[in-house]
């Protein structure tokens, strides 16, 4: 390979957009040619400089709420008096009871998380997720994110072992883009729960874990709340909820990886 040929392929090589055979030829040339090696070093210096998080710009304060305010102006207000369904109309005063009934059904089938809790409380799911979202938000305050700082699963897992009556799954997923950065004790009501913390790009994911009650059958549940994405599921006798400001498909990838890891070793 000549130097000119190398220059043509250097950037795709650098960006992992080249086939293996070609990449090997480039590698060989770089090992032998100091001139090209210097150019390659320049590429590395540029990447190192630009990937410092401080070089990025982040919006100050209230941009998010400004956008939300503008967006909500785009949506026409819902019809005032009634909800119109094809066959019949439901007056507004009945809606709360219908919502209540629906919530009770949901709880009956899926969200019996605390058997001792008051079952007539039809907002249990809402309460749990609202708490998790506020736990997540609080964790993003300076110095609130992690109690044990470690990217090593063999440090984080034993740390929990000394503090909780159950053992949360702790897997580093750095290779797949979700870096384990530590763990934290958090609360759900009065119950102590585990929060395993991951970083994906500049987003954080809190994975909240606590023991599942015997009768609970949490099906996979994904939804959005206050702009955060939430995913809940149950496995190996544990209830798990992941909360993040990353996108839904990112969260789904994370959850799938967790499930694979957990299924693979337990």
């Amino acid at each position, binding site marked *: 390979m000549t130097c000119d040929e190398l220059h043509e392929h250097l*950037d795709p090589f650098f960006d992992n957009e080249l086939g293996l055979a070609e990449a090997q030829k480039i590698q060989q040339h770089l090992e032998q040619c100091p001139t090209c090696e210097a150019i390659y070093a320049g590429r590395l210096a540029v*990447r190192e400089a630009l990937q410092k998080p401080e*070089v990025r710009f982040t919006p100050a304060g209230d*941009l998010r709420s400004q956008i939300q305010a*503008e967006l909500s102006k*785009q949506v026409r207000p819902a019809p005032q008096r009634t909800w119109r369904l094809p066959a019949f109309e439901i007056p507004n005063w009945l809606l709360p009871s219908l919502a209540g009934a629906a919530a009770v059904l949901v709880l009956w089938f899926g969200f019996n998380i605390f058997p001792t809790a008051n079952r007539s409380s039809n907002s249990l799911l809402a309460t749990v997720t609202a708490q998790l979202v506020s736990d997540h938000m609080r964790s993003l305050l300076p110095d609130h994110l992690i109690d044990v700082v470690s990217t090593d699963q063999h440090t984080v897992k034993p740390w929990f072992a000394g503090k909780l009556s159950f053992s949360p799954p702790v897997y580093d997923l750095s290779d797949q883009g979700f870096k384990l950065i530590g763990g934290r004790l958090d609360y759900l009501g009065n119950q102590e729960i585990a929060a395993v913390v991951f970083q994906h790009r500049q987003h954080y994911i809190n994975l909240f874990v606590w023991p599942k009650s015997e009768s609970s059958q949490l099906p996979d549940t994904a939804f959005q709340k206050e702009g955060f994405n939430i995913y809940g599921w149950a496995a190996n006798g544990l209830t798990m909820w992941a909360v993040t400001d990353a*996108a839904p498909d990112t969260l789904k990838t994370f959850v799938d990886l967790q499930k694979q890891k957990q299924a693979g070793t337990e």
Partner: protein
Amino acid sequence: MNEEEKLTRFEGEMLPLMNDAYNLARWLVQNEPDARDMVQEAYLRAFKFFGGVRGETGRAWLLRIVRNVCYDHLKKRKVYSSDAELENIPDYNSPESKLQAKSDVAAVRSALASLPEDFRTVLVLREMEELSYREISEITQVPIGTVMSRLARGRQQLADLLKKMREKDLV
């Protein structure tokens, strides 16, 4: 899907990308108030078209809209002040830029800011947002070959600038 459901889905999918959108806009229009306006405008535009079929990830789609909004804005601005860009090129020999460049981050920022728009855009998308060539080609609406050559030239210019700054002991 009614409008309110659409809004909920849109916010859940798109608001998490706001920092990426802002970073790109900020690097394209080069000042904070305009960047905020661009991001807001991009979100309104995106909401209008949200829900249709698209062949790319949500992130690439939103960034394409951000880039288009910024380019429209820059085109308009250029009609009125065609030498605005010239004024923006930092002079590394002036005493005040030496002061500014004292910190590594400020130096890197001013070096990147001094690159031509096309090079700056692909560098932000590749090195900061870590997008693939295909995604960058969709966002910037040029062939992959052009993406590659812009990356090559942009990186070379930036590498030279960084080297020069290091030699002058600015970094």
